């Protein structure tokens, strides 16, 4: 008995310490994220002026998605994220940020930003998601293959290939990566709703988090 009490008592203390530490760590992280948002609500590590948006800029609920065009979960979530914005018309804006974790994804992001200059942002992103298995395979990443797919959208490829090398696009990528690091983003996609990290990850959880923020702000 003595031995059982000793071992299970110790195990209980260790597991309890783990849970307590996790609780404290998550709280501190949430507070840190909230302080970043409060310091400057308009331009901060979550939201940059240059970032592509879906929905009105004055919407009080900001859904920030750090994504990678080569990420399978981002592709799977994409229609649902748009549906969430549509489900709360005028009240939710989606802000797209990049964290190119997959090999070759930085090239894809540059192409995407160059396509945006031709007014075809969402179509291009959708096409990149649809053709992921062709260009973003984990074994043979080949972002150059995107050059074959993109013309179907009616993009001026000569212009795109010139503009994707621009300093402005390189700066966007650099700033997004720096912000992702600051916010502790290590996975794609990572969602923040008004500075709150979506955790645990999941579509129902995301829908609930957005709905709760809409309820608070409207």
């Amino acid at each position, binding site marked *: 008995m003595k031995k059982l009490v000793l071992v299970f008592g110790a195990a209980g203390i260790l597991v309890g310490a*783990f849970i307590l530490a*996790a609780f404290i760590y998550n709280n501190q992280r949430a507070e840190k994220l909230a302080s970043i948002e409060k310091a400057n609500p308009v331009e901060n590590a979550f939201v940059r002026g240059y970032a592509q948006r879906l929905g009105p800029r004055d919407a009080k609920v900001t859904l920030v998605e750090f994504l990678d065009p080569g990420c399978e979960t981002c592709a799977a979530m994409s229609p649902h994220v748009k549906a969430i914005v549509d489900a709360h018309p005028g009240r939710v804006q989606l802000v797209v940020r990049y964290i190119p974790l997959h090999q070759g994804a930085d090239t894809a992001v540059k192409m995407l930003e160059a396509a945006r200059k031709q007014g075809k942002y969402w179509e291009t992103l959708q096409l990149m998601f649809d053709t992921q298995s062709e260009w973003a395979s984990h074994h043979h990443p080949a972002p150059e293959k995107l050059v074959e797919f993109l013309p179907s959208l009616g993009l001026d490829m000569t212009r795109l290939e010139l503009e994707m090398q621009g300093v402005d696009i390189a700066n966007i990528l650099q700033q997004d990566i720096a912000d992702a690091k600051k916010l502790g983003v290590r996975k794609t996609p990572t969602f923040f709703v008004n500075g709150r990290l979506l955790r645990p990850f999941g579509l129902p959880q995301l829908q609930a988090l957005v709905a709760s923020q809409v309820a608070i702000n409207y």
Partner: protein
Amino acid sequence: MRGVLAPNSSRTMNQARTAPDKLDTDWLLLLAAWLLVTSATLGSLFFSVVMELPPCSLCWHQRIFMFPLVLVLFMGLFPFDPKVVRYALPLSVVGTVVALYHMLLQVGVIPESAAPCSQGVSCADVDLLVFGFASIPVLSLLAFGAVTALLITVLWRSFR
């Protein structure tokens, strides 16, 4: 052959039979080793699950030798079986070697070009320091080293 390395060592079997609830030194040494490996396992899970630090390939190799020790040593505690050292010591020794290699890689004694992890997460980067001095491989080395020392003590006592 004598000691716990000998299968069916009569001394150890008698020990287990005669004193099922006696807190003798060997049992307490094993308990200390089990507490260490359990803490190390929970700590490593904290880094990856709670803090979401991706484990590098060398971290995974150390996990392979650390995580099973939680179960192996536990089985040696109930009922007390000092022969568990036979099965636990190889794991902790190999773990110590991997942790030592990882630490040397991180402090730069071994060049990163010699490391088996050029892709993904770098094994040589120091992601965080615990208590201001201990990187994750240092913690791992301390845990593996201490467990190995405890298990060798149990082994050594059985030879006396």
